[in-house]
């Protein structure tokens, strides 16, 4: 049975339970609902919230390098600390935080397979104690552009017909799910997907207990069925780059894709841009489809 390409990046709840007081390890919880951490977290774990801690509150961007260094220092994370991420919802925000740590060049990052759900299912203990550590010294790297795609690059990538992955729900992909009265979260003006993108909803990466599917199942999904190539440049996106960080983790580390980026601007940017191509419906569309038809191609 094939194993993941980088199995060492996943740790079990058992491993975490054995390393709760290991000074070289810092356990970090990142959740969709941040009150979950308050309600009960893994003993000795600190919280990093995606919205408040990782996002720049003025510009639409991640925190800058100095703010990232401060964030790590305040949580007692040093450059050589092994940081283990976990959270709710199949670890999607945990993967988001993992990705930001990789963006700033942190070397030793892990994900606790199964997240909060697996910890609960394994009958392990929760804590409501406040956790703090002495401040550490941390020096971040410049942002690693090899894992982050910005809009102009996505546009070039799309025009070239390269691998694009839309990890949202089929309804969002087809452009049907736009009428959300009272809930402006999905604040895009247009619905649909980036032409050429194939749709693999992110929950397909995970089992019911929150753990990742086996290497064999993931290979079947992406490589056998969708004919994606490990060596081709790939960009994944969703609504704000959160669900796609999980897919990015799967492609990059579990399946060993050599060049995969997360487009964090995602649909909240693309669906609001002027003159970018959009496809509706269940078919990817895109340059490959347009080349074979008599209808004029869409130009951005």
């Amino acid at each position, binding site marked *: 049975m094939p194993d993941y390409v980088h199995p060492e990046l996943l740790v079990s709840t058992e491993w975490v339970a054995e390393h709760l007081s290991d000074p070289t390890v810092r356990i970090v919880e990142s959740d*969709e*609902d*941040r*009150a*979950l*951490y*308050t*309600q009960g977290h893994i003993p000795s774990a600190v919280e990093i*919230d995606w*919205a*408040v801690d990782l*996002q720049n509150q003025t510009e639409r961007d991640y925190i800058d390098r100095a703010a990232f260094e401060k964030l790590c220092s305040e949580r007692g994370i040093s450059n050589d600390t092994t940081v283990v991420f976990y959270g*709710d919802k199949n670890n999607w925000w945990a993967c988001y935080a993992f990705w930001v740590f990789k963006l700033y060049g942190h070397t030793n990052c892990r994900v606790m397979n199964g997240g909060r759900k697996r910890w609960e299912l394994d009958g392990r203990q929760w804590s409501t104690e*406040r956790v703090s550590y002495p401040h550490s010294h941390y020096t971040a790297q410049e942002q690693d552009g090899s894992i982050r795609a910005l809009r102009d690059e996505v546009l070039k990538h799309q025009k070239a017909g390269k691998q694009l992955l839309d990890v949202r729900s089929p309804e969002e992909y087809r452009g049907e799910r736009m009428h*959300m*009265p*009272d*809930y*402006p*979260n999905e604040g895009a003006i247009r619905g649909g997907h980036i032409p050429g993108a194939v749709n693999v909803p992110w929950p397909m990466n995970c089992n019911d207990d929150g753990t990742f599917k086996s290497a064999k199942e993931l290979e079947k999904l992406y490589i056998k069925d969708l004919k994606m190539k490990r060596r081709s440049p790939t960009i994944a996106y969703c609504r*704000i780059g959160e669900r796609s960080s999980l897919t990015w983790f799967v492609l990059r580390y579990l399946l060993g894709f050599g060049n995969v980026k997360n487009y964090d601007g995602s649909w909240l940017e693309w669906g609001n841009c002027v003159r970018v191509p959009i496809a509706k419906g269940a078919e990817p569309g895109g340059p490959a489809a347009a080349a074979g038809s008599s209808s004029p191609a869409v130009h951005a």
Partner: protein
Amino acid sequence: MESIQQRLDELIGEFADLDAREKLELLVDFAHGLPPLSAEYEARKAVEDRRVHECQTAVFLWTEGTADAARLVAEVAAEAPTVKGFVAILADAINGRPVADVAAISDDMLERMGLADVLGILRTRGLRAIVARVKRGFANHASAAR
């Protein structure tokens, strides 16, 4: 009896003075205080369309009662303590007070509680959507009763 807004002002005041961690702890306390659905509402949940579809979280709301005594009944998934706590705060302020007061619930309550900064923009919008939904529910309930 105090109005809904007066009761909300008291609750908002309780939150306003706390630091971020304390605010979240108080929110979790409210979440724990939201009673489970009674057998009657459990039965109704199965046959009525009460799910707030705009929410990613499983939220079921009933906006009913008499003109003098509004009743907000809700069920929120346990894995969403922020939403659950917030709905519990609304229920605390609304229940047993005049339906006509609901419309006056101010839209800036999350800012005044200091929760907007603790939760971030997207989550704050989600909670505001619940306020809008509750207000709309009671407005429809009042006009249907007229």
